[in-house]
């Protein structure tokens, strides 16, 4: 059984005091413990941004990749060795800006992994520029006169991409978030959690208070997680009341499920001696 202690790393945490990332970090560690996952069997993949430092703070396998590429990187790992539990941690800019081109595709393909987006609605590590999920009018160093376009709705996009597990958490409600993570990791197929993550240094608008005053839990309202249409409607709720929880959860065949020849196969065990290609060579004669 892993313990919190096992998961500790020697790295000093460099997030700002009070940052929402701490809630995500703790929720993830607790989820790992609850799931009884072995450190060796779990891989943390992260993008570049404050969120990306996750790899320094959880003592499990890890790949700190480049900005925006959590999904293809994690996909490569997952397809090669489906025995590994792969959890990706991305930022809003990381996933919804730089990595947006992968989002719908990984979801459609239903890669068997979990994606957690630290959605602080700013580019944190580059000192607070606006991002796709910044609210209209949000002022930052790159948008001193306010953000122009309406914010991106990642949940809606995940839902219309046939997402099999779509959820939203709040870093300020660690236990609830942990529950979402447990469910997401257990889910066979692509599980996506967008996490409201207050950035205490740059997001003066979407603070802990701001979120706390608005969020409510879907499961407390008897939301049917197998109803995609309802989930989509819920994903548009914004303003005074903003839902968190599981919006949609219904398994469908994963990418590997459609590859009968390698289903559940750990491909990393296979490349040890030259593979006989005589049958192809014969066709070349």
């Amino acid at each position, binding site marked *: 059984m892993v313990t919190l202690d096992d998961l500790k790393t020697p790295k000093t945490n460099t997030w700002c005091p009070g940052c929402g990332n701490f809630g995500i970090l703790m929720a993830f560690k607790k989820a790992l413990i609850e799931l009884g996952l072995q450190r*060796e069997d779990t891989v943390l993949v992260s993008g570049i941004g404050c969120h990306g430092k996750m790899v320094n703070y959880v003592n499990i396998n890890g790949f700190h990749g480049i900005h925006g590429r959590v999904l293809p990187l994690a996909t*490569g790992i997952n*397809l090669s060795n489906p025995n590994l539990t792969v959890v990706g941690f991305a930022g809003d800019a990381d996933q919804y800006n730089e990595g947006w081109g992968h989002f719908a595709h990984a979801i459609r393909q239903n890669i068997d992994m979990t994606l957690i987006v630290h959605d602080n609605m700013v580019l944190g590590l580059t000192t607070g520029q606006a991002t796709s999920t910044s609210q209209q009018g949000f002022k930052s160093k790159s948008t001193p006169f306010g953000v122009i376009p309406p914010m991106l709705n990642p949940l809606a996009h995940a839902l219309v991409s046939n997402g099999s597990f779509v959820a939203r958490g709040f870093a300020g409600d660690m236990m609830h978030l942990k529950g979402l993570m447990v469910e997401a990791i257990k889910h066979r197929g692509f599980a996506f959690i967008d996490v409201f993550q207050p950035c205490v240094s740059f997001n003066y608008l979407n603070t802990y208070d701001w979120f706390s005053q608005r969020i409510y839990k879907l499961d407390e309202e008897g939301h049917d997680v197998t109803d995609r249409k309802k989930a989509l409607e819920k994903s548009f709720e914004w303003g005074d009341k903003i839902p968190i929880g599981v919006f949609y959860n219904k398994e469908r065949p994963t990418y590997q499920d459609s590859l009968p020849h390698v289903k559940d196969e750990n491909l*990393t065990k296979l490349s040890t001696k030259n593979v006989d290609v005589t049958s192809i060579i014969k066709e070349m*004669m």
Partner: protein
Amino acid sequence: MIINKLSLLVGGEAGAGINRSGFLFAKICLRGGLNVFGANDYQSLIRGGHNFYTVRADDEEVYSQADTVDLIIALNKETILFHKTELVTGGAIIYDADKITITNQELGRDDIKLIHVPLRKIVKELQGPQIMENTVALGAAIALLDYDLEIMNKVLKDTFKPKTAELNINATKQGYTYAKQNYSDSFDYKLKTVKTTTKQKIFVTGNEAIGLAAINAGCKLYAAYPMTPATSILHFLASVDRQYNMIVIQTETEIAAINMVAGASYAGVRTMTATSGGGFCLMTEGLGMIGMTETSPVIVLVQRPGPSTGLPTYTAQGDLRFAIHASQGEFPRVVIAPGDVEECFYNTLEAFNLAEKFQIPAIIISDKYLAESNGTTQIYDQNRIGIDRGQLITDQYAGEEYKRHKFTENGISPRVLPGTKGAIVRTNADEHNELGYTTEDPMLSTKMTDKRFKKLDALTKELERYETVKLHGPKTADATIIGWGSTKGPIREAMKLLSKEGFKVNYLQIVYLTPFPVSKVQAILRSAKKTIVVENNRTSQLSSIIREHLLKTVDHKILKYDGRPFNPEALARSIKEVL
């Protein structure tokens, strides 16, 4: 009578089966014991336009297309108009005069033979699809050449499903019979089956050879986005993945592909991607990450003429410097340029080994001409290059905390795969310490950079044992041709011509461009009397690399950058001009 020295051209619109019919003809020659070279030339379109495929068949080895053509199969009029000047005196054109009317004036020469075969009529009678016209024409060609129809039938049987095969066999028979009856002995060129003592050879493209080698090397995940002229690797591997426990995945972009293979390599499989220039651009960021995380995918860069989209279906060697210097910062890599279909196979196996052993990206640089032309080669020795995965601990891990990026004598950190009991495997695109945690410390950063560059030293040493350069031709010569990659074929053909004329030239082929085999090249060039670089680009990138590494200017450069490969005779002429 000229026996077993033939250059044939099949031409027509895209979609008329030109490629396939040229390929079939080549196969028929191969089965008769001949050496064959087949090259396609097509535009960036799907139907219409003008495509052609040339086949050279010879009882000696052939390394490229010829400058001239002996026999044309013209499925449209353009083929005649575009290629009539390439025909030798005494050459012939097989065509359907019912479809194509060509005046003497249009033809403009009377030293060639027009061989009418009622292709359309025959196909109609057989109630076959129009595309079968080319098979009828093939039959006629076999007849003209006095070659063996049985071999053709055998090839058709091996290629098509029984029903289609039968239809085609009938078609060729009609063409054959028609030509025998009407044009018997009217053509000076003949083909004869050859009893070879050596084993049956294979006929393969550069891309197929690379794909085949990847399977042989144990590649388990291939991820790519289609891009001419790399796409056929994807097609080839996708068609056989089920037989070899491979995953072949068409990604949404090249960016996805490179990151996917990086992930796969980290997870522990042998993995590959391929693309052309535009896609390689998009992969450069991932390439740097591979360098930094010491993962080891193989990346195939199949060049075509740039800049930008350029001439997407033609050939060039304009990306060498880019491949060598792509991505920010500095890290070791290997850049290998096979020159023919034999090297495509063995070099790919080497690439997989070197990538894993030194935990670096391995780039195979090829081009459209090599990738899509078919060459004849010996059956590959599937065990010549065994799998060497380097220092890889696959069982349980024990001992001190596992350090993915451990400092060692030669810079190589023993590898453990994630999932291995006892080890946590952590890597990082940020600069990192031995454990893979992010660092910003100046001394540690220096040390990590040095660690990666120690691997370059180790790699350079290892490569001394490899055939990183090859010297073809006499040891001493009046001039030394220098080249890399696909120019090998035309250069070797040109050398044959030159040697017949009594010129003594040899040819230094540089196979490994990075790390540059300085001492080997130096040793050869030291005794070279005159140096001539031959390249399919405008700025002579190889010359600049020789300058950089050897402080030496080559004497002459023969450059071609019109998207087409060198032709042997023209090349020999250019060489003679500077001899």
